[in-house]
């Protein structure tokens, strides 16, 4: 308690009005002004581009907010309670989760494999690092369009190549069935992002001291044992970052499905974000779309918080 009193006293002292005129302001005040000046641009940026839109979405989600015309009266909590009325809602959640699991497992496994292959500085390693990373430099929409062209059974070359090789008799419908549409999209994403995640893991691998490996070899550890007991545990921070990015990105999947499948065939590849887009721009109802967006935001915050918590625990242990 005496400490608090002392602190208050100090605060009272320093915040008391200063005489105007000749006396220069105390040093702390100048520092505070400087600090505020430095922080101001970021504060303005965050307020304008993050906080205000967030507030607007909050307001939208409680209102009847048609994209075209109409009154903007209150429509709460119907915007939230009506979400589950859509027959696509639960299938979209199930599909998004399934897609996230598949992409995360396949993508991280492949990225780790690629990173292990090119981690040593031997001849050609630089070339392969560049080649693996190149698709990552392409925009997702462009890559999706490229694969849409490749997959087309009428105009694309893939089907013709497979026919030419005698592997199939009829043109292949890569996006024609729910299963093939899902795996064709997964293939695109893995092709596009494996190099990017490889780069993150490569940095992680190169931070592991060589001495640790040498000591393990001296102790007679096998390659599998080294990988299991040294590489994986020491790579955990990089793997955790990749996991966080991959899970979040997959749960927000939109571009690839919008371009490749449009949610088809037979609504089998509708993701949650597509549902938001549909609600806003097909059904022209921004209120429900905003409510759905808020739910997705809340779910992602919760998931990220859990992941961070798990990571911190792992670090502490």
């Amino acid at each position, binding site marked *: 308690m005496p400490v608090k009193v002392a602190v208050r006293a100090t605060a009272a002292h320093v915040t008391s009005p200063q005489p*105007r005129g000749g006396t220069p302001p105390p040093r702390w005040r100048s520092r505070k002004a400087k600090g505020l000046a430095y922080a101001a641009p970021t504060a303005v940026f965050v307020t304008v581009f993050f906080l205000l839109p967030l507030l607007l979405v909050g307001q939208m989600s409680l209102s009847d907010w*048609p*994209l*075209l*015309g*109409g009154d903007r009266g209150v429509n709460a909590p119907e915007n939230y309670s009506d979400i589950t009325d859509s027959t*696509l809602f639960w299938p979209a959640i199930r599909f998004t989760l399934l897609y996230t699991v598949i992409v995360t497992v396949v993508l991280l496994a492949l990225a780790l494999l690629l990173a292990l292959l090119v981690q040593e500085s031997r001849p050609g390693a630089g070339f392969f690092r560049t080649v693996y990373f190149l698709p990552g430099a392409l925009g997702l929409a462009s890559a999706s369009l490229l694969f849409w062209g490749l997959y*087309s*059974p*009428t*105009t694309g070359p893939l*089907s013709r190549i497979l026919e030419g090789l005698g592997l199939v008799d*009829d*043109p292949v*419908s*890569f*996006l*024609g069935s729910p299963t093939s*549409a899902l795996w064709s999209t997964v293939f695109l994403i893995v092709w596009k992002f494996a190099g990017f995640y490889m780069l993150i893991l490569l940095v992680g691998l190169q931070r592991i001291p060589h001495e640790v490996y040498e000591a393990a070899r001296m102790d007679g550890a096998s390659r599998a044992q080294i990988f299991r007991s040294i590489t994986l545990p020491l790579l955990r921070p990089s793997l955790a970052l990749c996991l966080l990015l991959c899970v979040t990105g997959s749960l927000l999947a939109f571009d690839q499905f919008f371009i490749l499948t*449009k*949610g*088809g*065939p*037979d*609504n089998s590849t*509708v993701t949650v974000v*597509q549902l938001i887009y*549909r609600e*806003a*721009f*097909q*059904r*022209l109802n921004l209120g429900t779309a905003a409510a759905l967006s808020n739910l997705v935001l809340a779910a992602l915050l919760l998931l990220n918080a859990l992941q961070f918590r798990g990571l911190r625990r792992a670090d502490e242990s």
Partner: protein
Amino acid sequence: MGSTGSTAGPRGHRRRLVTGAIALLATASLVTACGSDNDGSGGGGDRAASAGGVDDGTELTMWTRAATRPQSEALVKAYNASHKNKIELTVVPTDDYQAKVGAAAGSRDLPDLFASDVVFVPNYTSSGLFADLTERVDALPFAEHLAQSHIKAGTYEDKKYVVPHTLDLSVLFYNKELYRKAKLDPEKPPTTLREWDRQARAVDALGGGVDGTFFGGNCGGCGVFTWWPSVWAAGEDVLNEEGTEANLASTASKKVYDTYRGWVRDDIVAPGAREETGTTWTGIFPKGKVGVMPMPSTTLGLMPKDLDLGVAPIPGPDGGKSTFVGGDAIGISATSESADQAWNFLAWSLGDKAQVDVVAAHKDVVARTDLASNKHSEADPRLVTINELVAEGRTPYAMKFGQTFNDPNGPWLELMRHAVFGDGKSVEKDNDAVTASLAD
């Protein structure tokens, strides 16, 4: 306390600044609000302006969708070359058009003129996006000859809001060379769905990469555009007059689905139909390997010159003929401040010269029934066939058209796919889902 309300010193200066900023913002808001205020009368232009509008060198903005870009570009180019007013045309990707118009309407940032897929027009007119053109349209000397299905789609509460801009009709295209090879008469296109089925199968039997027909099996808009005319040709309707109830489980409808399902089952359809979302469905026929398929009339001018093809109306199961009068209708946005100048373009675009020398010259469908036969169409009987269909075709009317029929995740596409790629037994149930969406 003494500083409260004081305007002296740094705090007073800050206060003045803040007060000034707030006043400035408030003034700006008021000015913006006043500037964007409208009563749907077309931007407050002088009513005394002639029926032809005003050509005083105003710069106008206009949006059109990519699907009808060539026609819009040709009209704008010809107008800019012959008038003082200048139009800056923006072509928007077709799939993004609704979203862009919606967002622009929300921020009151619509262009002076915007065309729209005619099936979305009721949604826009009822939302107050277009200016009232009733008096201007009625004053046109050829008003009664304008494509009435477009005028009807753009009429809301007895007021006319749009005029036809680019007409796109669904018609059968058939490859005469393949018909000859299949021992079919190239001058006798199908007049019933049964004949169409027989001819498609005959061509498909040629083999060697030749297929009988093709359709966009994962494209709701394509289905609406090419399947519904067969139902109309049978004398049935697909929607009630208000566009709130579907009649897509009717006898004629089922006959249409059954025919398409038979083609899928017997592999009469070119590869890719099952996943065709509408992006490339018109690119199959020009390759010369498909016998007979329905397509937009606007593709006629884009066909290879060496492709010997004929066009015919889309028949019903047992006869009759019809077409979907699609394409774009155009109106002046309710927020435009240059309504008279914008009308100058619209009135000119519907006149004899523009319709014949620009639209017909590009082998496109004219927007007026009295010009169905003109110097260009007479040189190509296929154009007369198409132009004459305007009077017989229909444009469906429904407020919820987009979310029901064009939405790739909507109930109509489900009905289509169940009926054609499935066993066709869920048509009644799927029709109820379509009705529910229309009445939503």
